[in-house]
């Protein structure tokens, strides 16, 4: 093989690691991403795993995948189609056949392509041929037998040997992308601190894979992706769930309060509770409640007692918390509820993505029960919106629902770490004892916000609760008082619009088509819109993060475009909401409910269609 490997310089590449849920694909993908991030690439990742912890081995239902999109240019999504697929078994081919770029590279463990496994995955004989993937560069590698051979001198248990298969595969991918071992080696040393044998085995397997790929080099082009041009600063890779947790910590520090989280584990939101449970060193009280209701109610109790109180959940859990959110509306206490949306209704698709909790967040309570609703757009900006949600809750004495989704929660991307000085100070409206008796529902005239009287303060003793009250806190069933309070609570939320930024257009301020997104599908939409702009179309985009209240410049902005297209992963909830709030415009829709995000192409095709219409 005297031929020199072909090196292709690429702007961006999408790699998908795929195998049984026990094959360690999530770790493999994470190690590759972290190494790419440290190298300076921009990236976006997406773990796609089944709800079952260990579905039957070798079946399509048990396939766990991790996709990473790395680039020299700005990367906004984990990518549609993979340039490189690592398949640990035939089921991984089955699960991903439709997601490989024509001419892409497939590396697979040929030892695992046994007759039995091929049959289990639903093939007759040759998965590659049967899927018509012959146009791809196919690299069969005897991964299983190679790690057995490479590790034979270590006298490890056979199971421990097989557990290094993923590192062999990772080694091959490192060769393909010319990556260094340093970060991965350090990870082994830290993770298996007390198991030197395992550290050694993983290092050997990683290198064995790398050298194996080098030896068969002529079979595939090597990719070269230069570091991305990111703004100056110190960066780290961060997932949405971690960013949410850290945003709350930052807000607590900026408000001079301690943080309390009351939560119940639920996929895909659990990471937020886990991350905050770690942060005892920052004084966090993390309360793992007996259920979703206890999670939010304990947080409400903590809020009453003067903490920054938050609770995290996913769709079905938000349903359970509804009554308590109503209580927070009535009691006018600050609290943030994070809803990491997943496919619904009911248990639905626990590990898949959807944006169908919007109307539940806006209206899913009894009575006139307005709350502030925000939605984050990317894993990294979850930090900003968690901070914003806490700021609004504390300064406006209201529950705030923050929507993310499974993609944001578990996806990662590089994040420029802010200095704490860059973040605003948060000023909750604390009550101070005065000469007159404290009135719990007395409000400041501008924002209509009541003040926060903390137990333990002499002279501010008062009672609040779910029954309708007068300004004094006296229970009242008087018709006029109820109407006044209902309208005041609604107006209080509307006035939050005074402290939120205007919508920003991506692209020209006017044009033929405005593509509208909200929350976590930003990356897909902006990528499609940028491509359309490059093609010369007069298309711009806005992404809504402030859902209730809406930013002040919506009408002005919408009126400058001939057509409006709303993209969302539901049957049109935001479009319906916009129709209610801004009836003067006509809204077209693109919707998808497959538990998967839009592909860039789907969005573009819809745009072409609309642009063609007269």
């Amino acid at each position: 093989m005297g031929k020199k490997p072909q090196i292709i310089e690429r702007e961006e590449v999408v790699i998908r690691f795929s195998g049984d849920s026990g094959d360690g694909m999530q770790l493999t993908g994470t190690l590759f991403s972290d190494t790419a991030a440290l190298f300076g690439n921009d990236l976006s990742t997406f773990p796609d795993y089944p709800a079952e912890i260990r579905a039957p081995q070798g079946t399509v239902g048990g396939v766990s995948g991790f996709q990473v999109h790395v680039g020299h240019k700005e990367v906004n999504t984990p990518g549609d189609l993979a340039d490189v697929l690592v398949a640990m078994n035939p089921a991984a081919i089955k699960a991903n056949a439709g997601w490989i770029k024509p001419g892409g590279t497939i590396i697979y463990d040929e030892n695992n392509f046994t007759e039995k496994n091929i049959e289990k995955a639903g093939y007759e004989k040759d998965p590659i041929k049967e899927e018509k993937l012959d146009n791809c560069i196919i690299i069969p590698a005897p991964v299983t037998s190679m790690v057995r051979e490479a590790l034979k001198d270590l006298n490890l248990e056979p199971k421990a040997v097989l557990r290094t298969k993923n590192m062999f595969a990772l080694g091959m991918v490192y060769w393909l992308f010319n990556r260094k071992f340093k970060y991965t080696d350090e990870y082994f040393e830290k993770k298996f601190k007390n198991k030197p044998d395992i550290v050694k085995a993983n290092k050997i397997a990683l290198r064995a894979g790398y050298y194996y790929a080098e030896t068969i080099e002529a079979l595939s082009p090597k990719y070269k992706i230069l570091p991305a041009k990111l703004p100056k600063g110190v960066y780290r890779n961060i997932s949405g769930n971690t960013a949410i947790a850290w945003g709350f910590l930052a807000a607590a520090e900026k408000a001079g309060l301690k943080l309390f989280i009351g939560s119940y584990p639920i996929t895909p939101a659990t990471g937020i509770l886990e991350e905050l449970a770690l942060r005892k060193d920052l004084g966090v009280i993390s309360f793992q409640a007996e259920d979703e209701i206890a999670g939010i109610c304990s947080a409400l109790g903590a809020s009453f007692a003067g903490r920054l109180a938050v609770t995290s959940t996913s769709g079905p859990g938000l349903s359970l918390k509804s009554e308590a959110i109503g209580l927070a509306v009535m009691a006018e206490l600050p609290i943030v509820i994070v809803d990491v949306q997943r496919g619904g209704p009911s248990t639905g698709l626990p590990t898949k993505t959807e944006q169908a909790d919007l109307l539940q967040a806006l209206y899913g309570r009894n009575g006139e029960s307005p709350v502030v609703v925000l939605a984050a757009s990317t894993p990294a900006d979850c930090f900003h919106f968690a901070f914003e949600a806490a700021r609004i809750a504390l300064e406006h004495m209201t529950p705030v629902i923050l929507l993310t989704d499974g993609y944001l929660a578990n996806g990662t991307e590089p994040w420029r770490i802010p200095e704490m000085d860059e973040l605003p100070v948060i000023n909750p409206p604390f009550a101070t004892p005065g000469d007159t008796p404290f009135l719990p529902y007395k409000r400041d005239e501008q924002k209509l916000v009541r003040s926060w009287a903390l137990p333990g303060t002499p002279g501010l003793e008062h009672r609040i609760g779910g029954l309708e009250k007068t300004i004094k806190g006296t229970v009242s069933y008087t018709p006029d008082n109820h109407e006044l309070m209902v309208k005041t609570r609604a107006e209080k939320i509307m006035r939050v619009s005074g402290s939120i930024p205007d919508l920003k257009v991506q692209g020209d301020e006017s044009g033929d088509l405005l593509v509208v997104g909200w929350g976590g599908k930003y990356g897909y939409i902006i990528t499609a819109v940028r491509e359309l702009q490059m093609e010369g179309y007069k298309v711009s985009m806005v992404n809504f993060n402030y859902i209730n209240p809406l930013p002040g410049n919506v009408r002005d902005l919408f009126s400058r475009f001939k057509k409006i297209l709303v993209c969302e992963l539901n049957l049109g909830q935001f479009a319906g909401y916009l129709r209610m709030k801004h009836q003067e415009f006509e809204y077209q829709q693109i919707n998808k409910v497959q538990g998967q995000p839009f592909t860039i192409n789907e969005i573009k095709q819809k745009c072409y269609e609309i642009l063609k219409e007269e």
Partner: protein
Amino acid sequence: MAEENKLKYSPKDFKSDQEVRWCPGCGNHAVLSAVQRALAELDIPKENYVFVSGIGCSSRFPYYMDTYGFHGIHGRASTIATGVKTANPGLSVWQITGDGDALAIGGNHFIHAVRRNVDINIILFNNEIYGLTKGQYSPTSEKGLVTRTSPYGTVEEPFSVGELVIGAKGKYFARTIDANVTLSTQIYKDAARYKGTSVIEVLQNCVIFNDGVHENISGREVRDDRTLTLRHGEPMIFGKNNDKGLVLDGLKLKVVNLGDGYREKDLLIHDAYETNPGIHYMIASMRYPEYPVALGVIRAAAGQTYEMAVEEQIRSVGKNSEIKCVADLLKSGSTWKVG
């Protein structure tokens, strides 16, 4: 007791300006006044009291107290109280609840609060009926009770509060009768001082929907013979003439008449602080007519409270961590510099 009260409150200081709206003759009035008396005799600043309740007649209680108060939603008082106490362990937190609120809709929260041993004082008004919704059976209603939702009698076994508390690893359980303000006041004070979840079951009369439910043990004529008021360190003796007592007969409790071959020194001595729940469980389970119903502090075993364990963990983790502020956290682990 006067010298212990350096703060010099009177029960009046704990009365809010709200008109009490319970039915005339309702047992709740007596509970309210006993609590106000107990608070006046305790050495806790008024601003440190928080009363939390759920939904039901008794849950209106916080409105009548001139303290901090939070009237919650049905069944969730334990969770709100847990949040308040954990967030600020310096507060004296009281949960006001009923048999429906605590044991039906809030049963899950109730057992978990008890299990965690959060330092809150739970006053459970047990009238064995739903009052606010006008007379449906509750989880403590006697089997066979005819109510609006059990017109042919209930077919369910009732809960016994004491058994449930001890079964949930509860360390403090007391029982009193609404009208017995002296005993109730003593118990509330004891519970306030106890560190951990204290559950006080108040046998309370609903004058409208279950009138006289506890009359067979609380009636003036019969109460001395049908109840046993426990005092730590004293023999388990009862009866109008102090002539009856309890002994252990094999593995069971037995009522004996003093004089019938039994002397006072043969009787069981009450040890509320015993950690083994065996005897407390038997005492809490006693039912008339086989036994007298036990009143007073039945169990008050020591144990670590939840909020103190949380504080201790925060302190010890904080001491050993390099992360002292959010900026430290943001820059921890793998980072890289651009430009």
